[in-house]
C-alpha cells in the first residue's frame, strides 16, 4: 500500500540548490581535524593522569610499609623501665637491656619483640607473643615470664601460664614451660625445665622485707629445697640422696640457717649434724 503517485516535483521549488555545499564540507573537515587533535591530547593527558595516580598509589604503599616497619627501641641504663605495648601487655626492662618492637604493625603483623638483655613480661591474651633473642625465641599466648640473658645463654622463667622456648640454632630444640618452671637456653639447646628457685618467685613484685625473708613451699621436691639451702647459706649438704622422692611443705627463713635446718629436716624425719662451717651431714633418725 502506498500513497498515490502524482509527480508534483515537476514544479521546481526555490532554495533547493545548496550552492555553498563544498565550502561547508571543507570547513567541517577542518573542524574535525582540530577536534581529533584535541581528543588525542586529552587522551594523552588521561593516560598521564593514570600514570601519575599509579605512581601516587605506589608511593602511598611505600609510605604505609615504612610506617608499619617503624621500630621503637627502648634502652635502659642503670634503672629498669616499664614499657606498655600497644596490646596493653607490659614489659619491665631490666637494667642495661634493650627491647625493640614495631608499634604500628603490632596488631596487624603479630606481636614480635626483640630483646637484648633481661626483661619481665606480662602478656595479655591475644595473638602469639614472641620474644626474639640471640639464643632463641620465646612465644606465648598470654602469661607472665622473665628472660635473663647471659653471654651465649639465657634463662627463661615462666611465672604464669605456659611459655614455649626455642633455641635459635638451625635445629634448635624447643621446650614448653609450665607455670613456675624455668630453663636455660644456649644457641643450640634447651635444658630440661626446672622449678624456679622459690626465693625468686614473684621477683618482680614489690615485696616487703618480711616476705622476702620468708619463703613458703608447697609440696616442693625436697631436693630443690636442699639446693636452695646450699645456695642460700653457702654450705654443702652430705647424703643429699636421702631426700629424693620426698616433698616439703613449709617455710624457709633465708636469714636464719639454724632455724631453717631445724624446720626443714625435722619435719621430713631427718637428723643432721653441722660438721663444720660449710658442711652439713644428713642422717636418718634412728
Amino acid at each position, binding site marked *: 500500500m502506498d500513497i498515490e503517485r502524482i509527480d508534483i516535483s515537476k*514544479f521546481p521549488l526555490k532554495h533547493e540548490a545548496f550552492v555553498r555545499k563544498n565550502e*561547508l564540507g571543507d570547513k567541517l573537515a577542518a573542524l574535525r581535524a582540530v577536534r581529533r587533535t584535541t581528543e588525542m591530547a586529552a587522551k594523552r593527558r588521561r593516560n598521564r593522569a593514570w600514570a601519575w595516580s599509579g605512581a601516587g598509589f605506589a608511593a602511598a604503599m611505600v609510605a604505609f610499609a615504612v610506617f608499619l616497619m617503624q621500630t621503637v627501641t627502648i634502652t635502659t641504663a642503670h634503672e629498669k623501665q616499664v614499657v606498655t605495648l600497644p596490646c596493653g601487655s607490659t614489659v619491665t626492662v631490666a637494667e642495661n637491656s634493650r627491647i625493640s618492637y614495631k608499634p604500628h604493625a603490632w596488631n596487624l603483623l603479630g606481636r614480635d619483640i626483640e630483646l637484648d638483655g633481661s626483661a619481665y613480661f606480662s602478656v595479655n591474651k591475644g595473638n602469639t607473643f614472641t620474644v626474639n633473642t640471640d639464643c632463641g625465641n620465646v612465644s606465648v599466648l598470654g602469661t607472665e615470664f622473665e628472660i635473663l640473658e647471659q653471654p651465649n645463654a639465657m634463662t627463661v622463667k615462666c611465672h604464669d601460664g605456659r611459655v614455649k622456648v626455642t633455641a635459635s640454632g638451625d635445629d634448635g630444640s624447643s621446650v614448653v614451660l609450665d607455670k613456675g618452671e624455668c630453663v636455660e637456653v644456649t644457641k643450640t639447646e634447651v635444658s630440661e625445665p626446672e622449678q624456679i628457685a622459690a626465693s625468686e618467685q614473684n621477683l618482680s613484685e614489690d615485696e616487703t622485707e618480711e616476705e622476702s625473708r620468708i619463703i613458703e613451699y608447697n609440696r616442693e621436691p625436697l631436693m630443690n629445697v636442699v639446693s636452695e639451702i646450699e645456695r642460700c647459706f653457702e654450705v654443702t649438704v652430705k647424703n643429699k640422696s636421702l631426700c629424693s622422692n620426698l616433698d616439703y611443705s613449709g617455710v624457709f627463713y633465708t636469714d636464719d640457717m639454724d632455724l631453717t635446718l631445724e624446720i626443714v629436716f625435722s619435719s621430713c624425719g631427718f637428723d643432721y649434724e653441722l660438721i663444720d662451717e660449710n658442711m652439713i651431714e644428713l642422717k636418718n633418725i634412728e
Partner: protein
Amino acid sequence: MEGVISWNDIVAGKEDAFRMLYDRYSDLLYGYGMKIKANETVVMDAIQSLFMNIFEKRRHLAAPNSMTAYLCRSLKNLLINEMQSATVRNTCELDESVSNNYDFDLEVDAESAIIANESDSEKYRVFQAELNKLSRQQREMLYLRYYKGLEVDEIAEVLSVSKRTVYNTTNNALSRLRENKVLARYFGETALLALLSIGRFYVFSI
C-alpha cells in the same frame, strides 16, 4: 544506498565515512532546512552543528534506523531551538508556541522552469496558490515525500506522528490539489489511478 556508509566507521571517527555522510545528505538537509527557516546562514550553521555533534558524540550514539529520518529530525530540532532562543533574545518573552511556529512555505520557482506559454505560467501560479491553501503539515509531508523521496515511516519519524496520520494527511492534500480544475487537467491521466488508490486506502482504514 545507506548501507555503504558503515555506522561502525562513523563511531570509529573515520574521515572517509564522515565525508561520505556529508556528501550524501547535505543537499537534502539544506533544502529541508531552508523551508523551515529561509535563512542560508542559520541553516548552514545548523547543518554544521549537526555534523559536528555527530562527530563529537559518535561514541555515545546508537545506530539510527533510518539515517535520513534521523538527520532531518535532528536538523529540524536544531533550527527550532535556534528560532526559540532568537525569539527570546529579541522579544524578551517566552512564546511556547514558537516550536510550531514555522511556516514551511513552499515557493514554486517559476523562473528556473522553462515556461513555454501563458498556460504554463498560469499553471505555476495556480499550483503555488493551492500549496498556500494547504496546512503546514500537509506541505511538509508532500515536500518530504515527493521532493525528497522519504518513505512513509521516515516521514512519521521526522514529524513524530503515526504512519496512519502520514497516509491520511498526504492523501487529503493530493485530493485537494486534484480538485483544482487547472491542476487536474495538468495531472491528466494519473488522476484515475489516484482515485483508485484513494479507494484502496479507505478500505484499509475502515
